[in-house]
């Protein structure tokens, strides 16, 4: 007879066989047997967070920067409900997470027991799938399946809810079985005819554009290499969504910058006027398309996506190609090389007018802003941070708001998996714990959270985690004392009624850093900014950098809601008179 293991042992055997090195978690009554077992498994390190939401975001940061799934361990009831935001965030941004939650013992389920909640019920809409383990014999199979569901197809979070009695019960452990198909769910569902059709469209196009997204990153680093080859082979311009940044070098001439609500003038106009749009691993999100009825009216649209339900969800496309981005680009490149080895040259003439037009849009310099010698402009702070860290293979996370958009606009990425931001759900408080997870995955690398002071306060407690594990993360706060994006919308759309968007009492971030046992640095004017940033970079400990920036700066360019791509609001070099004065601010 084979050896029997307890449920808690089975959990760790599964994690070992799935090559898990780190779990992010927080103990509690219903997971104590699993925590008790932790000491017997030295290859797995537990990272103790300060709040379960932090565990979830840290696991997301770990997953996005390493390409491996993130693992979260939480207790029942509040432990599970606290992780819901992170699960939803991972679901929206397609990040593989495996969340293991404790549950009250089987015989107490449904009795409103202490720290009981319907965890599988609550997390059903924010996971790819979830399981309540009712029989110890199913446990190993379920955990292995959980890893498979989370990491295959379009990745995403899953949850396994394990009642406490199951953690004590014994069963034989079974190893993972490799399956090609999961319940008939296929990954690639395209054929050579689709690729031929794509190349036909590409050779006919005179105003083509690649529109790439997070799917390229999720497809693995090879996909980004192939994407570069594809852009080289075609000479087509390329733009990227927020999530796709890094899959193509941000400083390459073919790159038009990010598109969408705060994308560049050239990227959005090119999307509007193109005659062929090739969407690679993006999902026509509403922040990208603007008004759907007027979205890129004259183009043929190709959509390459691993998730069949992304096709025709928001925008009707002419040629859907369902498959892993890497495989689709690889097939496309092979066919081009075989059938049209001279594609780029033969095509150059045809699209030269298009490039001239793009050049004209570029001359608008839509990311420009009015710099100042007295106050630090937030864009300037991001630019200086970029200049002083480029070449260091830096990992950037962000919170959500204006600072996030400025980071996306002004920090140029040249590698995938270096940019971790909450795009779909837009979770303030994402960046700090995500930076913890990134630093765990890459202990020797420079990890910076470009933050806003409002966002970062939502998960500030995780600084304590960073200090405990000697994670030298840098929290670079663009502090304007406002919820900046809220303030911007109120200025533009609600007659400057700044309802509740000003934080009248903020902590002293330098003292706060010291209280946590890390280093606090403050920059108050542009003259000292570089020195202070260098001081931060030279500090081999966690740092909170309080960068006091212009309080009224708005994020431009922008597509106002309900408008198409070609009706952008440009940066107001001439709007200085509209500023809120010092006096006005006291009225806010």
């Amino acid at each position: 007879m084979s050896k029997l293991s307890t449920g808690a042992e089975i959990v760790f055997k599964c994690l070992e066989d799935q090559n898990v090195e780190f779990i992010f978690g927080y103990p509690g009554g219903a997971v104590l047997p699993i925590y008790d077992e932790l000491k017997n498994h030295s290859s797995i390190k537990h990272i103790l967070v300060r709040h379960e939401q932090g565990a979830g975001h840290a696991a997301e940061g770990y997953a996005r920067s390493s390409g491996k799934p993130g693992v979260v361990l939480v207790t029942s009831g509040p432990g599970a409900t606290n992780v819901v935001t992170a699960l939803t965030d991972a679901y929206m941004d397609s990040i593989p997470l495996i969340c293991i939650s404790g549950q009250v013992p089987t015989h107490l389920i449904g009795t409103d027991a202490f720290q009981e909640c319907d965890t599988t019920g609550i997390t059903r809409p924010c996971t790819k799938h979830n399981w309540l383990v009712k029989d110890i014999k199913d446990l190993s199979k379920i955990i292995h399946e959980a890893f498979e569901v989370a990491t295959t197809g379009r990745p995403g979070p899953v949850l396994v809810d394990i009642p406490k009695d199951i953690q004590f019960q014994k069963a034989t452990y079974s190893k993972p079985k490799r399956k090609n198909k999961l319940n008939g769910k296929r990954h690639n569902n395209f054929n050579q005819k689709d690729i031929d059709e794509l190349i036909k469209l590409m050779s006919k196009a005179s105003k083509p554009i690649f529109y790439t997204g997070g799917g390229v990153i999720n497809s693995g680093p090879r996909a980004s290499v192939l994407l570069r080859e594809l852009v080289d082979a075609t000479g087509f311009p390329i733009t990227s969504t927020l999530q796709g940044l890094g899959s193509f070098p941000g400083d390459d001439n073919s790159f038009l910058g990010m598109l969408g609500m705060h994308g560049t003038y050239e990227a959005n106009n090119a999307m509007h006027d193109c005659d062929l749009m090739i969407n690679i691993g993006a999902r026509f999100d509403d922040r990208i398309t603007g008004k759907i009825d007027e979205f890129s009216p004259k183009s043929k649209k190709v959509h390459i996506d691993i998730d069949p339900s992304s096709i025709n969800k928001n925008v009707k496309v002419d040629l859907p190609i369902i498959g892993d981005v890497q495989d689709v680009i690889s097939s496309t490149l092979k066919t081009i090389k075989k059938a049209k080895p001279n594609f780029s040259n033969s095509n150059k003439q045809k699209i030269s007018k298009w490039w001239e037009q793009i050049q004209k849009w570029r001359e608008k310099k839509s990311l420009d802003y009015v710099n100042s010698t007295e106050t630090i402009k937030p864009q300037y702070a991001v630019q200086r941070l970029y200049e002083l860290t480029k070449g260091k293979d830096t990992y950037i996370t962000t919170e959500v708001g204006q600072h996030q958009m400025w980071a996306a606009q002004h920090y140029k990425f040249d590698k995938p998996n270096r940019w971790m931001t909450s795009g779909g759900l837009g979770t303030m408080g994402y960046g700090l714990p995500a930076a913890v997870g990134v630093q765990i995955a890459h202990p020797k690398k420079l990890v910076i959270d470009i933050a806003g002071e409002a966002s970062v306060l939502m998960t500030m407690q995780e600084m304590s985690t960073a200090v405990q594990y000697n994670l030298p993360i840098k929290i670079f706060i663009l502090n304007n004392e406002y919820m900046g994006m809220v303030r911007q919308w109120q200025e533009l759309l609600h007659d400057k009624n700044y309802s509740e968007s000003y934080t009248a009492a903020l902590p002293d971030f330098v003292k706060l850093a010291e209280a946590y046992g890390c280093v606090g640095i403050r920059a108050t004017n542009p003259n000292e900014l570089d020195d202070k940033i260098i001081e931060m970079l030279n500090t081999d400990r966690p740092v909170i950098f309080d960068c006091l920036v212009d309080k009224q700066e708005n994020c431009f360019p922008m597509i106002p809601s309900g408008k198409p791509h070609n009706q952008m609001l440009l940066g107001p070099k001439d709007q200085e008179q509209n500023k809120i004065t010092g006096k006005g601010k006291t009225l806010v």
Partner: protein
Amino acid sequence: MSKSAYSAPGKKGKFDKHIIVVWVDNEAGVLARVVGLFSGRGYNIESLAVAEVDAKLNISRITIVTTGTPQVIEQIKLQLRKLVPVHKVADFKREDKNVIFKEMALFKLVGNISKRKKAFNACKKYNAVLLDKTNKSYVVQVTALRREIDIMSKNLKKLGLVSVSRTGAVAMTRGAEIFK
């Protein structure tokens, strides 16, 4: 400029009625997953019928009557196929002549015998079966289309109908073929 961070709704397409048939693993929570998908994404459910159809393979068959634009119906199918316990999804248009749709209803009729007999006769064209009889009442079973049962339950009111219980529609293709 709109006062919203979201765009205004675009043009609405024409709504069609569809019958979606889903084969799923018969496990805890599977119906909640399917129904939750509909409510979470704002799709309609007009009727729902679900029962295990293969005890050995542990498969249940869910039949859902829904309405939506062609784009929404397409999304419903694609989203359903993504659920882990879902094996296959079939979609039939209500007008499809190649598919049989049936609903069952139970009518409780209370009143004098002549009224009840009249009511039972009216039910006869819908495979009426008299399931229960007392000196005051009948319970009658009929199988028919949704709209036929709608009409019957209206017409029988004056003939002593006091209670109606009905199932959701179930569907099956005509002929020897089965849906793969």
